[in-house]
């Protein structure tokens, strides 16, 4: 009962440590710090349990080993070892304040071992996890068994005392420690919501194996233990019997020797008397020697004279076995003493006879009756048994035929039941003792009785009893039984651990390794190699898996090669669909290149003359890659060409193409495209942009710049899109460079894009090259930038040259449709130009407002039929930092400057809506002039920046 306190304390500590670890910031402590703290705590509990136990044979029965076991098994190996050492050292020094010296070494060592055992098993068997409660209990039991064996081993010189201690302490200590560890583990399992019931479905090999191995080991243990018990029990009985027999035989031979000698002496004296005087009265001899019978037998065995009158001349000694023995014996020897036995003539009478041969032939026989016999021997018997010991505390007692004790103490003459021996049937009938009997024999020193084993033997009318306390008799048996059962526990536990770890190493770990590798293969890494070579079976398994993977890889590679080949064909077909007869006429030149990436892509370019004076050219990019993209490209190309050749406007071509491409576009592909249709006579280009990169435009006298207009939505992206046409007028010598996103999005190894800026810079530096040189040079530049990185996307480039001729050398010009919708383009153009002159934002805004006002005027009023253009030329004088804007249109002549200024002082009600635009223009610009020349309205404005 006293042991419950430390068991509870241990459980509470487990609970507290577990909760602290799980629910408080202590989680963040480094692993070893935590282990040390836990180790110290459990060490203290171990020390406490050490003192708080039950006193037993000068030392304490306790549950000290539970704490290191708990610490080690539940919380971690270092904690177990630390607390084991603390508990062990405490136990070692506890002898100075009352701990048992007797088991000092064994107990200290056992506790330290408990710590190591918990640590080792946790690492070795449980993958550094907490074991289940069943294993916890088993480990605690094994640990205590080791403890007991250590007590045995360290006290070999006083094994009976050690055995006494072990016998008493084993059960409570094993139960106590096992309970403490088991309960602790159950508590933690409950807290961590582990299910006790076995999981359904497949189970880990390790678990199945562990359970069956445990079962086998337990069964084997029980069988060997039972066998050992039976064997030791048998050996112990035999040994005890031998001890008894030798004691009894000693006494027997003493008694028989004494009685034989005495009677023979008498027989010789009687013979002497008889031979001296053959007529002597035999009856006189009876009195003289204290005997009861004298017979004179002739050489034939006939009794010729006797004190028993009825046998004279009537009884032949050969008649009965008892008397015949004398006749037979005395033929070869001179004298013979027979054991105390029933008389031949009358078996109800017991006699002891001795006979001596007569000189004249025949022999003379004398006999004792029981009274004379025992009278003579009792004293001797007492002497013989007095100091005789059987074993250490066993004894030999003798009683007479009536089972009254022949002894020299207070029990002398008493019936043996007085000392506690209740005669069994065999004894009452004077038969031979066939087994070991039990009796509670009175203890002479203490009041009470001690359970003895005894045997008996009837000799010469006496019953010799040899007895020994059962404890003593069975000491050796129990000692060897305990030792062997303990050793078996150890051996089987070691066997279990060994086989388990072996199987784990040889099979389970290898299986796991193979599984992990297979997992990686399944995830797609076909280059992983299974390499488990620890034994032949796994080697062959590894080889099989590897060859399977290799075969698989080969098939995949073959399939890939086939697809590559098909893609190559597709690429060829795709390329052959692109026009390569580049026109080099006087009016225009076109040159294009397409560099497909490894896979078939969806880029294409196209150009064709629609009639004598118009030529169409475009660049497009189908989303995605591969065969679908290539097929979609072919479709798109054909549709656009068909529509273009039907004479539609460029925006209508896109609008219509979009509708057609949207039909049955299940795969959700789309196309970006830029298409221009040039009127060779005017240089006017109508263009449309469906989500495509802005072309780069070079005016004959200017630099390259992006033709950035608001792009429409991609083709085939959504039904019902309407595309707008843009318009520029090319002057002789202007070039338009079209490209796909493969150019600006070419990516190098550092994931940097080639970019529009780099493209523009390259174009400005090399813009004077002829297209057939320029495009390869650009490709080379891109390749240089990309470096080792693979070409990810198709690269398509198309250069359109409008035949050169001299133009205005001082100003850059741009033609805009005279429509409100073009306003954004106009303003973008102005802003871009101003930015190149580093114009301040404030001025830029003012200029934009002025340009807007003029342009809106032109757009609204210049062309009565609504169709027309405005040309905006911008010049910059670097010395004066004056910008000149020249806006010309071919509309009705109109001088906006003539219109009177509005009255800006009027109130809101009176102010007219209108007239403000030109007013603002005049206010913000430095100078504004109007001229009408060559049927053109020309408005010139300057502004200093």
């Amino acid at each position, binding site marked *: 009962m006293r042991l419950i306190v430390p068991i509870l304390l241990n459980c509470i500590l487990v609970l507290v440590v577990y909760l602290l670890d799980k629910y408080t910031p202590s989680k963040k402590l480094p692993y070893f710090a935590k282990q040390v703290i836990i180790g110290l705590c459990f060490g203290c509990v171990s020390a406490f349990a050490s003192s708080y136990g039950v006193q037993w044979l000068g030392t304490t029965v306790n549950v000290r080993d539970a704490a290191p076991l708990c610490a080690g098994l539940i919380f971690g190996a270092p904690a177990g070892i630390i607390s084991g050492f603390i508990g062990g050292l405490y136990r070692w020094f506890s002898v100075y304040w009352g701990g048992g010296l007797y088991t000092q070494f064994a107990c200290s060592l056992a506790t330290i071992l408990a710590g190591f055992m918990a640590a080792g098993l946790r690492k070795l068997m449980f993958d550094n996890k907490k074991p289940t409660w069943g294993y916890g209990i088993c480990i605690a039991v094994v640990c205590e068994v080791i403890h007991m064996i250590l007590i045995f081993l360290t006290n070999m010189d006083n094994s009976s005392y050690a055995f006494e201690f072990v016998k008493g302490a084993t059960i409570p200590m094993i139960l106590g420690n096992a309970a403490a560890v088991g309960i602790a583990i159950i508590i933690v399992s409950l807290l961590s919501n582990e299910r006790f019931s076995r999981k359904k479905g497949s189970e880990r090999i390790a678990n199945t194996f562990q359970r069956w191995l445990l079962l086998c080991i337990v069964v084997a243990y029980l069988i060997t233990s039972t066998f050992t018990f039976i064997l030791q029990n048998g050996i112990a009985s035999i040994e005890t019997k031998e001890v008894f027999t030798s004691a009894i035989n000693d006494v027997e031979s003493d008694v028989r020797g004494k009685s034989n000698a005495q009677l023979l002496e008498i027989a010789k004296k009687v013979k002497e008397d008889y031979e001296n005087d053959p007529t002597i009265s035999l009856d006189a001899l009876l009195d003289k020697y204290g005997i009861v019978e004298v017979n004179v037998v002739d050489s034939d065995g006939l009794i010729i004279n006797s004190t028993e009158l009825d046998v004279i001349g009537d009884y032949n000694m050969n008649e009965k076995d008892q008397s015949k023995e004398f006749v037979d014996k005395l033929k070869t020897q001179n004298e013979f003493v027979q054991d105390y036995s029933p008389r031949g003539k009358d078996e109800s009478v017991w006699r002891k006879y001795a006979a001596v041969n007569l000189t004249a032939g025949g022999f003379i026989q004398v006999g004792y009756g029981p009274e004379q016999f025992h009278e003579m021997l009792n004293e001797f018997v007492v002497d013989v048994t007095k100091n005789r010991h059987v074993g250490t505390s066993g004894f030999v007692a003798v009683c007479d035929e009536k089972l009254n004790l022949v002894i020299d103490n207070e029990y002398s003459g008493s019936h043996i039941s007085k000392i506690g021996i209740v005669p069994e049937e065999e004894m009452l009938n004077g038969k031979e003792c066939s087994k070991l009997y039990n009796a509670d024999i009175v203890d002479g020193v203490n009041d009470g009785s001690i359970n003895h084993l005894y045997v008996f033997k009837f000799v010469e009318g006496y019953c010799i009893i040899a007895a020994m306390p059962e404890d003593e008799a069975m000491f050796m048996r129990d000692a060897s039984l305990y030792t062997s059962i303990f050793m078996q526990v150890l051996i089987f536990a070691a066997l279990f651990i060994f086989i388990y770890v072996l199987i784990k190493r040889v099979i389970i770990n290898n299986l796991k390794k193979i599984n992990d590798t297979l997992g990686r293969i399944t995830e797609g890494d076909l280059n992983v190699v299974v390499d488990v070579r620890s034994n032949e079976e796994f080697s062959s398994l590894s080889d099989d898996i590897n060859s399977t993977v290799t075969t698989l890889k080969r098939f995949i590679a073959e399939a890939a090669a086939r697809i590559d080949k098909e893609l190559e064909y597709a690429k060829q077909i795709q390329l052959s669909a692109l026009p390569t007869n580049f026109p080099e006429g006087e009016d225009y030149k076109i040159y294009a290149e397409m560099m497909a990436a490894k896979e078939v892509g969806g880029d294409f370019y196209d150009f064709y003359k629609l009639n004598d004076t118009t030529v169409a050219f475009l660049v497009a990019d189908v989303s995605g890659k591969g065969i679908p993209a290539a097929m979609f490209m072919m479709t798109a190309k054909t549709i656009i060409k068909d529509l273009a050749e039907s004479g539609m406007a460029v925006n209508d071509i896109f609008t219509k193409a979009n509708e057609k491409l949207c039909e049955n576009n299940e795969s959700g592909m789309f196309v970006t495209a830029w298409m221009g249709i040039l009127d060779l006579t005017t240089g006017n280009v109508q263009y449309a942009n469906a989500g495509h990169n802005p072309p780069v435009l070079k005016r004959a006298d200017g630099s390259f710049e992006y033709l950035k207009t608001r792009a429409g939505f991609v083709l085939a992206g959504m039904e019902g899109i309407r595309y707008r046409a843009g318009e520029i007028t090319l002057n002789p010598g202007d070039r338009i460079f079209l490209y796909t996103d493969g150019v600006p999005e070419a990516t190098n190894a550092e994931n940097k894009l080639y970019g529009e800026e780099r493209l523009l810079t390259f174009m400005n530096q090399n813009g004077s090259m002829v297209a057939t040189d320029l495009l390869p040079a650009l490709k080379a530049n891109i390749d240089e930038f990309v470096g080792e990185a693979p070409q990810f996307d198709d690269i398509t480039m198309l250069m359109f040259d409008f035949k050169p001729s001299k133009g205005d050398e001082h100003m850059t010009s741009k033609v805009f449709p005279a429509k409100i919708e073009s306003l954004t383009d106009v303003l973008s153009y102005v802003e871009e130009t101003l930015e190149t002159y580093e114009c301040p934002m404030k001025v830029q805004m003012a200029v934009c407002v002025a340009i807007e006002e003029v342009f809106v005027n032109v757009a609204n009023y210049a062309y009565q039929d609504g169709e027309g253009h405005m040309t905006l030329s911008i010049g910059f004088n670097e010395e004066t930092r004056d910008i000149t804007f020249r806006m010309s249109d071919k509309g009705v002549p109109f001088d906006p400057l003539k219109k009177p200024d509005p009255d800006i002082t009027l109130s809101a009600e009176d102010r007219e809506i209108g007239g403000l*635009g030109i007013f603002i223009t005049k206010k913000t610009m430095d100078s504004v002039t109007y001229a009408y020349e060559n049927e053109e309205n020309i408005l010139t404005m300057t502004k200093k920046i």
Partner: protein
Amino acid sequence: MTIEIKKNATETIVEIVGRLDTITAPALDKTINEDIGDTKNLVLDVKGMEYISSAGLRVLLGAQKKMQKIGSMKVVNVCEDVMEVFEMTGFADILVIE
């Protein structure tokens, strides 16, 4: 240009961000004439408006005319560049600018 309308208990706030030019002005005109409903107090928040041309001015003038008949209109958060245009054209005197 983006236009956002916010209403609270007493006034309707129209936030204008971007360029108010010939192309975008009709959108604001539509907002003021149709979308804001019959509010009495209109506030034009032009904090994000960096550009205005005569078309924009015309819309503002129209709005001012409309609102001063039924309630009030004010223009808030006018940036410097736009303020210059307002001053140049006399709109600084017509509009209630805060």
